[in-house]
């Protein structure tokens, strides 16, 4: 089992929750020793996932974990969870420029590029869970 060193948990209901979660997530990444550019990427991914929660599901949660795999590198793990409408066309949703909200359509596809691992589990009318991991180098 990974050894969880620190855990931040945010309820996402307003745009203030979005800025709060990305700001504190960035600080956690910096405290763990991530380079400034990588901490910035982590903050942006938190921001994109939190915004998706607001836009599509209205409410949900963001959890940010400072983890360590046994005999492995330390990592930061972002888990975005909601009980919203789910993503009907996941492959399209992971494509640059695809949007159903009028945004830039970069939230999921771009976030995946910014992280080392990126998993989306979504069920229509049940909700969506995104798990994103970045390793400390």
């Amino acid at each position, binding site marked *: 089992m990974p050894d969880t060193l620190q855990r931040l948990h945010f309820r996402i209901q307003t745009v203030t929750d979005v800025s709060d979660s990305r700001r504190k997530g960035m600080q956690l990444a910096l405290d763990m020793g991530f380079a400034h*550019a990588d901490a910035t990427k982590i903050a942006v991914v938190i921001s994109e996932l939190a915004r998706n929660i607001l836009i599509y599901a209205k409410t949900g949660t963001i959890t940010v974990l400072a983890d360590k795999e046994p005999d492995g590198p330390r990592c930061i793990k972002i888990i975005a969870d909601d009980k919203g409408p789910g993503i009907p066309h996941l492959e399209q949703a992971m494509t640059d420029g695809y949007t159903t909200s009028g945004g830039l359509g*970069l939230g999921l596809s771009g976030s995946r590029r910014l992280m080392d691992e990126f998993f989306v589990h979504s069920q229509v009318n049940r909700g969506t869970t995104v798990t994103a991991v970045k390793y400390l180098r």
Partner: protein
Amino acid sequence: MDSGTIQKLENLLLVAVPRDLTDDEVILMRRDILRAIRAYGSQVVLLDFTQVDICDSFFGRFIYSTSRMVQLMGATVIISGLQDAVIETMVELGMTLPDVEAVLDLDDALALSRRLGRNGSGPAPADGGLPEWEE
């Protein structure tokens, strides 16, 4: 919106983009920018991102839409002061800002705006003079 974030400098409108902007504040700031262009007859709007350390796709959309609106007033948007980490993140995220010129700092922005000022005419200043800032 703090009126100190928008200042006139020759034919340049200098906008210091705050570190954390809510969606509502973005819309208010954009309206302030458009009003100030009309009041001062500004030809160039400089969006300075020196204070911004997290630029997500929502912010990117703000830059792009502001640039389009400013163009419709006959002026041009230049962005400056993007931090290295912000640039790296924006590009990897896939944010492209077509038709938006970028400069390194205020000196370069001023040089570019002076060059544009000699060639273009820009919108004529409104009679009212200084704009009234929103709270």
